[in-house]
Each structure stands twice: as C-alpha cells, then as structure tokens.
C-alpha cells in the first residue's frame, strides 16, 4: 500500500447556494464595470434595456480601479450597503 501526502490546502470544498429568487422586480442593482475595454459599452446597453423592462428597479454604476485585481474591500462594502444585486461586466 502506498501513502502519499496531500498537496492541497485540505479545505473541504463549500458549494455556495444561489440567493433565493423572490419573483419581485424592485430594489437597487449595482452595475459594476471592471474597466476592461468596452465594458462600459456593454453596461450602457444593458442598463438601457433593463430600465425599459424593470421600471421599479434602481440602477447604480460602480467601477473597479483595475481589472487585474479583485475589487477593493471598501468598494465591495459600498455595493453591499447600497444595492441588493450586482451585475458585473466581464468584457471578454
């Protein structure tokens, strides 16, 4: 019998559950631009279409300082305080 040592961080994988769907279209949605080229074009178009379809919803725009790093903690906190949902534009 061979014994080997675990090369991983030994964490038990945790599957995150999706947030419950209420079927209610109200509240505030964050539109997060990660500042990749043309991400703003996508978000502009998306916001325009969503405003038409969801008149009871407020949209707020946010930008990351760089697309190369995770969003800074203060930005994440601000979005969490001000919004109920996030749509993030990945331009690739």
């Amino acid at each position: 019998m061979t014994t080997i040592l675990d090369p991983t961080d030994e964490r038990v994988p945790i599957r995150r559950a999706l947030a419950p769907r209420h079927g209610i279209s109200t509240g505030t949605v964050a539109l997060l631009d990660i500042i990749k080229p043309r991400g703003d074009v996508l978000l502009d178009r998306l916001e325009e279409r969503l405003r038409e379809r969801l008149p009871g919803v407020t949209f707020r725009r946010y930008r990351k300082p760089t697309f190369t790093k995770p969003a800074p903690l203060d930005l994440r906190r601000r979005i969490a305080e001000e919004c109920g949902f996030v749509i993030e534009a990945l331009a690739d």
Partner: protein
Amino acid sequence: MTAIPAFRLLDSEGREHVWPSERARLLVFMHAGCPTCELTLPLVEAAHAAFGAEIDVAVVSQDEDGGRGLREKHGLRATFLDDSALAVSFEAAIDAVPTAVLLAPDGNELARFEGFARADWFELFARMAFRSGRSVPSLDWSQLPELRPGCGSRSNEPDVAARLEANASGSPLRARRIELGESDDPVEFLFDQGLSDGLPVVPPTPERVMRMLAGTRRAAQDVVAAVPPNYAPATVEKIAINAVMAGCKPAFLPVVIAAVEAVCTSEFNMHGVLATTFFPTPVLIVNGPIRARIGMNSGINCLGQGNRANATIGRALQLVVRNLGGGRPGEVDCATLGQPGKLTMCFAENEERSDWEPLHVERGFARDESTVTAFAGGAPTGFIDQLSRDARSLATSYGLVLAAANHPKQYMHGEIVVVVPPEHVDTFKRGGFTKNQVRARIQEVTSRPLRELVRDEVCAEGLPVELLERLGADLRVSKFRTPTDITLVVAGGEAGKFGAYFQGWVSGPLGSLMTTRKIEDQGGLR
C-alpha cells in the same frame, strides 16, 4: 528521561517484550555482517548467563529475520528482539552498531557506548554485577581486542532514514496522509484527483517529502506565503510536497520557496496573473552562486527542455499555485490560449558571459547573493539579427523588434524582459554599449508620432483617440513608459545571433511588477 522509546518487540520465539518494565535492561543493537557485532556476541551471552536473573539482556536485531540466523549461527541463549522495522533503532538514535545501552527500570540510561572497547565492557560488567549482586563472569579478556570500530546502523541508511523519520513520533510532517488501495496506481490516482498539470507527477510519499525537506533549514511548518487565488497558507512542507511532485531535487527547494514568496506578493499580483485571459505566467530568472551549485542551465537551450533544475523549479511553483492556491485552468485561470510556460519557465542568467551588471545586482542585491526574480511574462518570442556588426545597428534591431510587442499600436508598454545571447553581448561590448545605451536606443527607434498609434478606421486597436487632443498628434511616443521597463538578461548558447523577449502584461502598480526575492537558506543540505 529515556532516549530509548517505549516499545513492544517480539523475540525469536514470538514472545512479546515490552519496554519500560520493572527490571533493568541491557540492550545491544546490532546486525549481521558486522564483524564487531559478532565479536561482541560472546559478551552478550556471558552477560545473559551471569546477570539474566536480575537484568534482562537482549540483542536488538536490525536484520530482516529478527536475528534468528545470527542466534542460531552462534548457538546463543540470549534473547534476540526483532527490530527489522528499525523503528526502535531510529527513535533510540542508534548511529553505529554494536551500541550497548544499560537502562534502569525508571528509564534512565546508565551507560551507552558504540563499537567495541574492552574497557567499556569491563566497566559495564562491573556495573551490572553491582546492580544485580552477582559475580562478574570469568572471561579471558586478553583474548579480546582492545578496540574495534563498529559499522553504520541500518536505521541511518539513506533509503530507510527518510521513511523512518517521516513516520517517527517526532516527525515534522503534518499534511493529511492519503492511503491508496493496493490496486491504485499512484500516478493515475494523482491524475484522477486533478493534482497534475497534465504530465505525470512523482507521488509525494512521506519518505520523498522528508528527503525534500532536508534541502532547507526552514522549519516544515513555517508559513511562507498565502497562495492565490484561495490564499491558502503555504507551509514549507506543502511547498516540499509539490516540489516532490514536480520532480525537484532537495537542493532546488530554497529556490522554489523564494519563488513562492516572490509571486505571492501584492506587487506581483499572482491572482491577476492567473485570472487574466492574456498570456502571462511567472517567468523565473535565477541569479547568484546557487545557479552553479544546483546545476542550472544558462547556456545552450536554456529556455528549452533538458535541464532538471530549470524544468522542475518552474513546474513546482506552478503546482503550488494549482494544488495549494486552487488556481486551475477553466476555473480562476481563464487564459484564452495559455502558453507552454504555464507548465514551467525558469532559467539562470549567464552572469559570467558579460561585463554588464547581472539582473540581481541591478535590483539592489550583492553579486554573491542568490536571488530569484519573477516576471509576469508571455511565451518567449524569438528574433534575429545576424548581420549587425556594430552596437548601434544591433540596438536598432532590438527597437524594431520590440515595437511590435503585444501589438504595433500598443504603446506605453510596461515591463518587458529581453534575453540577450552571447554573440549579441559581444557586439554590444565591441561598441562599448552599456545596458542603458541599449535601452535608450530602443526608446529612440520605437518612437512614433501619436497620430500613428491611435485607434482609427484602418485598425481599431491602439491608443485612445482622446489623447490626440490632450497631447497633440505630433507628439512622439516611445514603446515603453520608461527605459527602465526594459530588462536585459544575458543567457543562451555561444553560437547564434538570436535573442528573445518575454512580452509583458498589465505592468505597474495596477497590474504586476517584477519581484525579486533572496534565496535565503543555501547549504541547508544534510
């Protein structure tokens, strides 16, 4: 405190002998094939006969047959305990055989000596006689040599010492142990678990990991860094496990540790380097005396295959990021195409082949220090200049080539690494060109008016049109933000006027910055 661990060993008749016990005990560790051990056997037999009623006397045999052969060969009555697993010998720190240890019932060692010295045995018999109240057996001491050295203990043989150390009670290993079934092929198992980069990995058995840890003076549970993207703590042990899997030798481990330190910094930004759809991956450049000591290649084909240190150090880092950090393609690693350097990319600078300061000295380290520099680079792109015979012409070629890095209209490029081959080094030397003169010429040659670089109807790629208004269409722009963004490293074979560059990524504080770490613990090999 006893140096002999608690044990349960079987004798030649299958009876169990337990330590500690109520009685004093003489243990003599030995194995067959050791003449000094055989020379000692009549004394053990005499001790057994004279003091056995009061003091337990036993040979602790390191032989596979538990000492049965030796006992029968010499027709002995003394007890032989089977330590063929060598666990007791290892934990008792037996370096040589024979080693005699006299123990009091409370576990204290009353005497211990190695090899054969007539005076030692004479004194031992006197001590045993005193403790047991029995007489010293009459022996013709003049027939015994005064002094004979012993042999090495089997528990110290290289192939078994690592196994024994890994399993001993004081083992530094803490990683989860995975027991494979009899029918499991360890290599296939590691593939199935997603723990390979696509090539076979060496199964990280406890013995191999113990041998790997001998390459560093750092403690196995020292945390070196938090490895993105999961920011998992990388202990020296976990790095050693992945280094085994990559095929590293123990002497490479300090380089791998320093490389992990370098990429897991905010400046290097391994998370971004991994997650981008673009090409970058850590390109490792090793400088200093360690290059020669571990046999790295800075010459012929140094960016290619064939050298164990070059190939496995880079691979070990990639496996740490994959297995420990959780950075796997298709998950956090979203590279559109990727590149072969994501398996491994590590080479050494040929510092001796040029008068220029080597990379680590330029970056503030002493020439006799060893360092590893990590650069978020793409795959090497080769270029040709076989005809330039003067330094200015050659530097012009460098500029013309580098102007196209990433895209001919992508200017204000950040860091780039250019590998200068020996034949080009000679041409630059003939012209007396310093590194800064090469850099300046590259900036001069690549300079173009802004109007040619902005996005237009011919080619939508390029700099933002708004810059025209702000800076003017005639402003001349060089390829690189600053000349110091151009890193020149000397490497490669003696023949061939071919250089190479590693394209950069988003370079600077918002992306990734070249990062150098000193390789601390050289000479840690035991």
